[in-house]
């Protein structure tokens, strides 16, 4: 037992080592860390772009904060130290612009996407399209209050005169990826997500139909620098990268349409 007894001295030593280890948690000591809050649907495409940016900006690190655009906008309103905001709908960007929380001059329309109706791939779904939705028992969509994909979905269902009929069957996801997850797990019979989301899980979900043309507001992804951010130069550089043709190729590979030339 004696051998394990700690002297006061090395007890303090261990405590110190432990504290240093705690405080060296990733993300604390980084001086040049660009924090990008981006719509959940952009996750894979942005992760693919990240090495390219970091390679051309020595010492810089990009960290992403993915979520529902509305939730991300709320975080920025509350003072989150975000450098760049990428929203999946104009409403959230407008809200921040009204409050002068973004640099309006940097605001740019980046990408477009498509809204699709999906169902679990197995067991074989009895649904074939929007008109079959009344037969479903549970349908998932993003919370229209703060998830852009959910708002577009609400507009489409309203336009197709299905919204009020389906009301009691709707399950709200906290972001578009949760909706995808619900469908992939088979917890719901159908869900509304972006075509780019559905493409990520081709084994688990199948696309039943695309939302009819004009049934929802145009889907626009926007980017803007956040006012008073810590790394405006890096943010501007990342924003420039996003609009370059090579980046557009990556976005297209994931199924997005580029809006900026």
């Amino acid at each position: 037992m004696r051998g394990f007894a700690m002297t006061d001295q090395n007890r303090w030593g261990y405590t110190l080592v432990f504290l240093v280890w705690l405080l060296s948690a990733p993300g604390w000591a980084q001086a040049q860390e660009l924090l990008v809050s981006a719509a959940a649907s952009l996750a894979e495409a942005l992760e693919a772009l990240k090495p390219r940016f970091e390679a051309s900006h020595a010492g810089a690190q990009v960290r992403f904060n993915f979520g529902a655009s509305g939730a991300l906008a709320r975080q920025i309103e509350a003072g989150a130290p975000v450098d760049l905001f990428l929203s999946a709908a104009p409403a959230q960007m407008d809200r921040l612009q009204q409050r002068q929380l973004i640099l309006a001059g940097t605001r740019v329309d980046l990408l477009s996407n498509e809204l699709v109706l999906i169902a679990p791939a197995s067991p074989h779904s009895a649904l074939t399209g929007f008109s079959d939705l009344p037969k479903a028992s549970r349908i998932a969509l993003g919370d229209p209050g703060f998830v852009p994909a959910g708002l577009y979905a609400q507009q489409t269902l309203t336009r197709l005169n299905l919204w009020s009929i389906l009301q009691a069957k709707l399950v709200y996801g906290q972001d578009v990826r949760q909706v995808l997850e619900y469908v992939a797990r088979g917890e719901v019979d159908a869900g509304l997500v972006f075509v780019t989301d559905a493409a990520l899980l081709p084994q688990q979900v199948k696309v039943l139909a695309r939302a009819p043309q004009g049934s929802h507001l145009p889907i626009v992804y926007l980017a803007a620098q956040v006012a008073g951010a810590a790394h405006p130069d890096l943010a501007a550089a990342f924003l420039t990268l996003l609009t370059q043709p090579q980046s557009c190729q990556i976005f297209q590979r994931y199924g997005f349409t580029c809006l900026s030339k």
Partner: protein
Amino acid sequence: MEPLLDALRLSLLVSLCATGLMCVVGLALAWVLAMRQFPGKALLDALISIPLVLPPTVVGYYLVLLLGRNGWIGAPLYRWTGWSVVFTWQGAVVAAFVVALPLMVRVSRAAIEAVDQDLVQISATLGKSEWQTTWQVTLPLARRGILAAILLSFARALGEFGATLMLAGNIPGQTSTLPLSIYSAFQSGNDDLAQQMALLLTLVSVVVMLLSNRWTGQRWKPF
């Protein structure tokens, strides 16, 4: 006002159902843990208490694994009945029940253990069966503590968020209890509604805690 009242009504319905379940299951467990010795007792005690220390999202995750359409219990249930507890108000009840059960069991177990065992034995020597003794001696003597346990677990059920979101989802009018509605309203930028609902929930919780303290403040001794 309407979303607020909807959420309140749903919250009360879910919490009352969960509390009702707890009064049966929780009280039985408390009695067994207080009065009996059996192998695996410590394990059972620990299992019931786990939701006290696990994050509710983890509890919710296990519940989905267990009760989801592809879950261990959920899958056969769905095959036989075509019904799944996920994304239903009953799912919200299950989540609230599991998360609040440890409070119910621990507090009422303490109340039952505090009953003077001499009185229980006297009841036995007077020829009363164990069942009669439980109903006519033990539980009446422990009633203050049990009442406090019921109120505490009701309050916990009322405030349940994480496990509910995982198992029951966020369905307006069906599983959007007050805590979930507050979250949605806040994320949507609807600060006024979020504030009203938060105040309402705080008010209800304070009243319940006051009542509960009033009962636990006095000792549950024979009078």
